[in-house]
């Protein structure tokens, strides 16, 4: 195991302020506080070379957990071990072996080209000049950042900047890469490119990847395992496949018939109907696919049919809403 988290908890104290000037005045003389349990008794472990998605709605505690794991925040309770090290006691030693990208925060210097930031970051990680040169050449080739390597960061597009951010976090060849919302704000094409790059560094260099994202495609396309957190608590930990196929026993049937659909069965819900086309939702806990199919075949002439699992977005929102 490269990462072990056991009973991790973190509570923040926050001031409660009433609205308007009156609230501000009251808050000044008799402030009220409330405790927010950002992370509550979380335990999991990650194996070497895994790509794990750590997902949850806004304010679920994803970033706080990453910050606790990387040693940025001190936990109130619990134990964290990263590469058999305590992130606080061994902060400097651990920093040489992990990399992190916080999509919202940049580690590149805004007014200087990425090549200068890479050079400085290489020195921060104690790399010699030839090592930095070799590493930058490799990352430039993998991330295809050559054309804008010497252009000031402020002049880069968001997609170009994120590619440089991830490359910068890999300058010291870390064993674990933490990515907090790496595809936030990117267009579809760039998102796809970033996903390919993450997969490539995982396969080529056996880098363990631990990522948070709101984009279900990120999870579906690059992760094998998913951990879902909501209101500071873990609500699901398993493979992406398992989540999609077993967690929600529902299937979607898209069917085109030669006549309008007429199917009144328990466990089958008509989601959409347009002329002779229909979209049905089958609840496998109530009926079986065999029964539904034979009913359809007996009652209708089918022109076309497709069966799919629930879209990932819906699976995840059901988990968030406590539907599973």
């Amino acid at each position, binding site marked *: 195991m490269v990462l072990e988290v056991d009973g991790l908890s973190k509570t*923040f104290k926050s001031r409660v302020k009433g609205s308007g000037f009156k609230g501000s005045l009251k808050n000044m003389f008799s402030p009220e506080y409330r405790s927010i349990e950002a992370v509550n008794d979380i335990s999991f472990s990650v194996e070497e070379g895994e790509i794990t998605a750590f997902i949850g709605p806004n304010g679920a505690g994803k*970033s*706080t957990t990453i*910050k606790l794991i*990387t*040693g*940025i*925040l*001190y936990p109130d309770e619990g134990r964290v071990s990263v590469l058999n090290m305590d992130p606080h006691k061994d*902060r*400097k*030693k651990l*920093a*040489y072996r*992990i990399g*992190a990208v*916080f999509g*919202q*925060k*940049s*580690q*590149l*210097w*805004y*007014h*200087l080209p990425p090549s*200068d930031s890479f*050079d*400085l970051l290489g*020195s*921060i*990680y*104690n790399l010699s000049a030839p090592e930095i040169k070799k590493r930058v050449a490799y990352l430039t080739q993998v991330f295809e950042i050559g054309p804008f390597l010497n252009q*000031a*960061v402020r002049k880069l597009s968001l997609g170009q900047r994120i590619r440089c951010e991830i490359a910068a976090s890999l300058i010291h060849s870390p064993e674990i890469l933490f990515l907090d919302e790496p595809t936030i704000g990117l267009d579809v094409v760039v998102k796809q490119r970033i996903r390919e790059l993450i997969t490539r560094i995982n396969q080529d260099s056996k880098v363990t990847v631990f990522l948070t994202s709101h984009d279900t495609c990120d999870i579906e396309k690059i992760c094998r395992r998913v951990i879902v957190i909501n209101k500071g608590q873990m609500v699901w930990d398993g493979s992406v496949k398992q989540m999609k196929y077993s967690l929600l026993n529902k299937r979607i049937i898209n069917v085109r018939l030669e006549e309008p659909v007429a199917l009144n069965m328990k466990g089958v819900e008509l989601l959409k109907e347009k002329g002779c086309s229909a979209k049905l939702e089958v609840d496998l806990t109530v009926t079986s696919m065999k029964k539904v199919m034979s009913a359809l075949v007996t009652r209708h002439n089918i022109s076309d049919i497709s069966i799919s699992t629930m879209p990932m977005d819906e699976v995840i929102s059901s988990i968030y809403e406590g539907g599973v």
Partner: protein
Amino acid sequence: MWKLLKKYFVFNLSAGMEYRASFLIQVFGMFLNNCAFIFFWMILYKRIGGDINGYGFSDVMFLWALAALGYGLAEVFMGNSRFISSIIYKGELDVYLLQPRAILPNLVCSRMNTAGWGDVTYGIVLYFLTQSFEPHKVLMFLVFSILMAVVFTAVRIIYHSLTFFLGNAEQFAGTITEMVIMFILYPGSIFSAPSTWILHSVIPAALVAWIPAEIFASFDLKKLLVLLSADVAIIILSVVVFQAGLKKYSSGNRMGTRI
């Protein structure tokens, strides 16, 4: 660490020069700004004739040269210290905590305030225009300037670290550090107790400039040792307060870039 600090210096200098015109305006602007005050003191001493509570024109000019060079060095080599509060409350300390370096030197040395070059130039020019060229005096001036830069930065760290505990101490820390600079530009002898106690502790103007000025005027080993002990105590205190605050750091999710 020294290798990295050297790298930061070169890196920040090239970042500053990215906007050449702005760089030169800042440097010369600061130089001219400082010159204006010297005319004020010249006129004052001409009118009074003699000295102010034992401080002659040359002594006041030493204070100005020391303050300019010390402050300039702090801004050039440890220019990020003035932003510690905002770095804390914006949650931008994350980047430094993820790097394999001692946090405080990495944090304070990672930025340069280019205007500081104006103060550095001004301090050196003023010293050679108004003070002795004797090598031991020049050496003393340089050592005291470096000490001032380090102690002044330590004071900044102490007050800005209060942000960890209070939520935002940026303005308070800014006021205190401005007061340190303001007081050291006047002869220390014009202040009397209890203000002297404050100026030896909470606003340590005496430690950063007045006592060095006394030692420069007439060398006293005992005084020097007391000064060095007090300086070390302030530096240790800054590390202790910052480290204690770090445990309270709550980060944040505000968008940010490194400038």
